[in-house]
């Protein structure tokens, strides 16, 4: 269960939001909405613990994420608007290295399977710098295929995806929710998620 | 419990700003008094030094400037530690307000050291531990100011600068002892409180000058801190009131 209480966000000299709170139970998805610059990404960065809120508190399973620290991060999977893939490595190497660095062992077969699911079969051995923007995004999304950590925080996951990929990702997310996972994401287009409870939170006025 | 003494209240800019404003004139006055007394004792009354002749009188600014350059750095590091530990807004502003004065003190220490070294040792610059550490200290001040100036977000600037200050506090002693082992030329410490080799008037002159430099630094840092404070807090109610009430 993820809870946010009375969050306040100040960036530079501007107060982006204040008094923001929500409560998200297992199997629920939270859509963050708001115009550009409303503070969606800032809120996500607060939720993953990289940006300390000006005031307020975020709790995971009842414990403030600041004190939970590594226990919280062991439950967290974050996908930013940057792909976090290395241009010099192949998609397969990227997946395996990311899994190793997150201390989440991933078998090579599982990694290959994930790459096949995102439609990168046959490109496993090509360095990522030779891939297109959309393909790079798919490499990043491939991380989610075998992801079993309960809390997913996704920043604009549908951007730069074609219709088929959007459907695939929506199914993947609903599978995660059905397994009792939680997800928070920002998006401009509302994508129907087949299963799970969807909540919405609008930031800014 | 409302009127219980609260340290945080004095650490808040809204309280600190007027308080600093009313204190500045006193620091200036005390600094001037100490300065005049120190100069009188040191330059007019104190006898000559039998080893160094009249040239030793540079000590009346060299030693206070050196002390202040180190002391200000320690104070900045202290503020930095407070700021990083408790996330107080005031700490970063104080560190930033102190830095230019600290850098000037380090410069003065080097400058007067060179002017003293030339007639005494026959060289403007001697690579000994104290001189080299003082030079590094100047670089650290400049590095701190350059780093905080390069970061637009004041909060990040304060934190990054604070971290640099703490790293510097660890390193300056290491550098001092490294250079000391590398090459030992400098005379021993000139002030030894138990058995001073200096005439009493000289010692008093120097201490008075040190007090003058100290009070000067506080006064100038407070003025600078007030400006920084107003600039950073210009959207708050208290700052608006101050700005609106100020006459140009």
């Amino acid at each position, binding site marked *: 269960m993820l809870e946010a209480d009375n969050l306040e966000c100040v960036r530079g000299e501007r107060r982006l939001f204040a008094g923001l709170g929500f409560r998200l139970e297992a199997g629920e998805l939270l859509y963050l909405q708001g115009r550009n610059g409303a503070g969606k990404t800032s809120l996500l960065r607060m939720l993953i613990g990289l940006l300390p809120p000006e005031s307020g508190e975020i709790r995971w399973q009842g414990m403030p994420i600041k004190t939970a620290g590594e226990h919280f991060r062991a439950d967290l999977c974050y996908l930013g608007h940057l792909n976090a893939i290395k241009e010099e490595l192949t998609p397969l190497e990227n997946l395996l290295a990311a899994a190793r660095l997150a*201390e989440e062992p991933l078998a090579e077969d599982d990694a290959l399977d994930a790459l096949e699911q995102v439609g990168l079969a046959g490109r496993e051995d090509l360095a990522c710098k030779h891939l297109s923007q959309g393909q790079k995004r798919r490499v990043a999304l491939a991380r989610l295929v075998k992801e079993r950590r309960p809390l997913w925080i996704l920043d604009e996951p549908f951007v730069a995806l074609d219709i088929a990929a959007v459907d695939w990702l929506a199914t993947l997310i609903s599978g995660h929710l059905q397994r009792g996972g939680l997800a928070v994401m920002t998006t401009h287009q509302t994508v129907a998620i087949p299963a799970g409870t969807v909540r919405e939170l609008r930031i800014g006025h | 419990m409302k009127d219980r003494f609260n340290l945080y209240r004095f650490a808040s800019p809204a309280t600190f700003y007027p308080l600093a404003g009313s204190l500045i004139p006193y620091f200036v006055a005390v600094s001037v008094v100490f300065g005049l007394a120190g100069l009188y004792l040191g330059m007019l009354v104190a006898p000559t030094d039998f080893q160094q002749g009249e040239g030793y009188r540079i000590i009346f600014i060299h030693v206070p400037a050196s002390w202040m350059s180190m002391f200000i750095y320690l104070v900045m590091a202290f503020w930095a530690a407070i700021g990083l530990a408790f996330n107080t807004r005031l700490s970063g502003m104080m560190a930033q307000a102190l830095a230019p004065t600290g850098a000037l003190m380090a410069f003065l220490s080097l400058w007067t050291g060179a002017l003293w070294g030339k007639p005494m040792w026959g060289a403007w610059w001697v690579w000994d531990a104290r001189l080299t550490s003082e030079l590094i200290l100047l670089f650290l001040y400049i590095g701190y100011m350059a780093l905080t100036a390069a970061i637009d977000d004041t909060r990040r600037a304060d934190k990054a600068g604070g971290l640099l200050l703490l790293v510097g506090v660890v390193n300056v002693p290491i550098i001092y002892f490294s250079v000391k082992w590398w090459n030992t030329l400098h005379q021993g410490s000139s002030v030894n409180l138990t058995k001073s080799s200096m005439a009493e008037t000289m010692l008093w002159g120097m201490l008075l000058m040190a007090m003058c430099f100290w009070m000067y630094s506080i006064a100038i840092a407070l003025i600078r801190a007030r400006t920084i404070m107003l600039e950073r807090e210009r959207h708050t109610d208290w700052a608006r009131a101050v700005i609106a009430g100020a006459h140009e």
Partner: protein
Amino acid sequence: MLNIIGAVIARDLKLAMRRQADIVSAVFFFIIVVSLFPLGIGPEPELLRKLAPGVLWVAALLATMLSLPRLFADDHRDGTLEQLALAPHPLGLVVTGKVIAHWLVSGLPLALIAPVLGIQFDLSADALLVLTGAILLGTPALSGIGAIGAALTLGLRGGGVLLSLLVLPLYIPVLIFGAGAVDATVSGLGGEGHLSLLAAMTIAAVGFAPWASAAALKIALE
């Protein structure tokens, strides 16, 4: 704990191997700078022997600096740094791994090439041995201290120049004892004392600097 450090080292080394030009250019920079000195100073062997330790060490210092701005910048730009900061282990361990990898790629090659360059300066076999040992022992400290500077200047305009301004003054002890070890050997005093001080500094720097860098990285990621 060793797991994660190993994982970071393995990844960074793999990346470095895919971009060998960077390693090679740092080594060439080292070679060229060192070789320029005899041309500027003149060929007297006595003078060259005297200058060799300092010249080699200053060149090694500058060559290590070359790759520092990219230590975290690449990971920062592509978002990997965020993922590293979110992994369920202390960021300091990750930075320890990165510092070790940086040393393997930038410090170690310098140590290996230094004895060859020392011959240009007419150093004796003893001195060459101590020189290699000193650079081997001292460069990890350079990588460690440099990591703090790289983390503090991450993403800033003019970061490279600022990085040198912050880091070079802090390199002084390493320079003094590194060059001192060779000096002492050349003058027949024995460099063991200097070498053990270098080792102490490296242990302190590699143990402490990653945590300071991690704190700086968290500030930069806010």
